[in-house]
């Protein structure tokens, strides 16, 4: 074959293939939509992955195929940590790529919007998203999880509360009366001391350090700080609180637990995989009390998880986190908690926004959400879906939501949160005294937020 003949042949072939592609035979080719979350079948957030792959995706694909618009949805499992997932999103989005539907922690939104990496749902998909039936069943407060500056960026998947989980078996061994509900920090510390005397290896674990990322800020620092009567941010002045007696009390609480009395295991807070170690140690009955979110109850120690606690409902109890003294907590409360929330966004770079929205709105509709409740009862984001069949979960929600507060939805927050993690790390590792650590924190936050946006409470 001469060269020109070969080229002609090649051209004709390409054209023919192209014609096939737009021909009627290809009309049924399904549109590919990808969804990703920190969820792995048999691993982290096992239930979520199972729900998506065995219920949501098959039923959705079936319905779409029946309508003559087939969609092929693929779940991309992410097995790393939250911080790594966030990094992955930031890098993906900044180069205009990434999966079509992404699970997202609400507090990341302002920072990503500030960077121009996210667009409101109505802009990515179209204004018709505002007509979705689901919005009428999601409270304003919960919609706020994935909203910023009056715009919706995604559909939330639920909210959470934080509390102390304790091992009833260890408490009984130490002769502590059940059910247990402390009313002050001193109560908590005395219980820890009693447990220690009774030979419990790790009486009280409360998160600190940079390795645990946001878990330190939420499950650790905030739970103590709110009990000391302060928040991180003054919502009236719109200023960050960089020094306060509350911060000092909080850091001294950490010092008592980890440095002075060895009531907790500082190793777990400083080593890389410490959070998983704390889960394993709790499962194995080495930890007496662990401050965690309800995710710990419904996913980490739930049946089927690798860190499942056998006879969870008999062995594990929960208590509200008390203020330093009754009435001394944030807003004068006796008990404190803080809530976050996650949900799902549509990647502004998606080539198939309509199909992605069809899937997202379907998975957030009543029946799939009910199906999830059956696999993993949790605080639902829809008012037409109740916590199904887990009385403990229901009790935690009704006791704690009234005391709960939220993080400031500001682009600086994640940066300041890493400074909080560093501040607690410095105290827990013994590198700095609480005063020194607070000074270094104040310096760093002032640098981030600007001197006009910070305040000191004497």
């Amino acid at each position, binding site marked *: 074959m001469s060269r020109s003949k070969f080229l002609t042949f090649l051209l004709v072939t390409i054209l023919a293939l192209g014609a096939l592609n737009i021909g009627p035979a290809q009309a049924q080719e399904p549109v590919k939509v990808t969804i990703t979350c920190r969820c792995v079948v048999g691993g982290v957030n096992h239930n979520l992955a199972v729900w998506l792959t065995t219920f949501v995706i098959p039923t959705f694909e079936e319905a779409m195929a029946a309508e003559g618009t087939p969609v092929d949805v693929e779940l991309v499992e992410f097995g790393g940590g939250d911080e790594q997932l966030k990094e992955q999103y930031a890098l993906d989005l900044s180069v205009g790529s990434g999966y079509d539907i992404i699970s997202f922690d609400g507090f990341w939104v302002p920072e990503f919007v*500030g*960077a121009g990496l996210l667009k409101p749902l109505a802009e990515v998909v179209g204004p018709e998203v505002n007509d979705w039936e689901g919005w009428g069943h999601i409270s304003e407060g919960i919609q706020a999880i994935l909203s910023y500056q009056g715009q919706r960026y995604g559909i939330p998947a639920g909210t959470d509360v934080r509390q102390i989980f304790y091992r009833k078996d260890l408490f009984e061994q130490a002769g502590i009366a059940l059910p247990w509900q402390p009313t002050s920090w001193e109560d908590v510390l005395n219980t820890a001391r009693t447990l220690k005397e009774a030979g419990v290896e790790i009486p009280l674990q409360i998160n600190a350090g940079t390795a645990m990322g946001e878990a330190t800020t939420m499950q650790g620092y905030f739970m103590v700080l709110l009990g000391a009567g302060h928040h991180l941010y003054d919502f009236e002045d719109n200023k960050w609180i960089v020094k306060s007696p509350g911060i000092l009390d909080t850091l001294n609480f950490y010092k008592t637990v980890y440095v002075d009395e060895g009531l907790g295991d500082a*190793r777990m807070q400083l080593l890389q995989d410490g959070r998983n170690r704390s889960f394993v140690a709790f499962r194995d009955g080495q930890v007496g009390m662990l401050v965690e979110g309800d995710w710990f109850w419904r996913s980490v120690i739930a049946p089927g998880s690798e860190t499942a606690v056998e006879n969870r409902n008999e062995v594990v109890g929960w208590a509200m986190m008390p203020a330093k003294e009754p009435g001394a907590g944030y807003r004068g409360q006796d008990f404190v908690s803080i809530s976050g929330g996650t949900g799902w966004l549509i990647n502004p770079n998606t080539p198939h926004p309509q199909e992605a929205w069809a899937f997202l709105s379907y998975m957030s509709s009543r029946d799939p959400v009910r199906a999830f409740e059956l696999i993993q009862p949790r605080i639902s984001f829809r008012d037409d879906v109740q916590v199904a069949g887990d009385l403990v979960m229901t009790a935690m929600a009704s006791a704690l939501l009234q005391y709960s507060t939220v993080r400031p939805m500001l682009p600086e927050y994640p*940066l300041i949160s890493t400074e909080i993690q*560093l501040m607690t790390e410095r105290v*827990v590792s013994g590198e700095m005294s609480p005063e020194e650590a607070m000074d*270094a924190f104040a*310096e760093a936050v002032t640098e*981030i937020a600007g001197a006009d946006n910070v305040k000191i409470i004497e």
Partner: protein
Amino acid sequence: MERKHAIFPARVGIIFLTPALLFVVVFLLYPFVRVFLLSFTNQTLLGTTAPNPEFVGLDNYQRLFDPDRWMRLGEFGSALKITAQFVVGSALIGQAGMGMLIAWAFYRKRGVLREVVFTLVILAWIIPETVVAFTWVAFLDWEFGTLNSVLDTIGVGRPDWLFDRPLQSIILFNSWRGTAFSMLLFSGALETIPPSYVETAEVVGATAWQKFRDIFFPLLRGHILTDLILITLWTFNVFTPFLLTGGGPAKRTEVVSIYTYRTAFMGRHEFGKGSSIAVVMMLINLALALIYLASIRRRRAT
């Protein structure tokens, strides 16, 4: 000297060089200039300074060298200090020392033992980093590690390697990891020494140490210098300790490469400040490379 007749005219030579030059410009020069310019901005990956970075002058550099805090754990001075300890411990003492010892021990020897030792040492060098890091974590872990299982059985107890001795752990790790290069270089260099020197020395009854001091060391000096500079350069930039300790606990193993990574790609995602660290690191590397080149030139001259 008469100029040799060139096979190609100079113009053709330039054409041949162009692809290579283009690669250098695109993959070396452009990133260098970009990083240099970035280091004077407050560019971040996230937040409002991502789309609209501002020029901040020498601010990033001032923050790196702020005397009030630069020696704090997790700051630049501390990272430099830890890197220096890491380089001296793992490269200069560990790798070069072990490499010399092994090469010297098997000098002019053949046999199974030599093959086994060389193979193992080289194996440690060529296995992918993540695999190696995983095996070392499994080896050193306090609760489940192989080392502590052995130590516990023989009654030594369970030292907490990655927690109480993190720097020593990564030094040990990196010595084990990289000894092969020095070993190969030294054993190759030893082969170049005429056997008659050694034989003569043995006839007059020189001890092993005397042979080393008076024959091997002077003849190998150039190779030793080359080796030390090269492994210093590599160790200075090595990132693998991150896979063992993540720079912790409490930033006690945060070498400069990890510090750069953490600044630019974790937490605050400060590309600007991260770039300023990269510029300083480039200057240090450049200085080391110049010393290396000068030493080679001097060796050629003599």
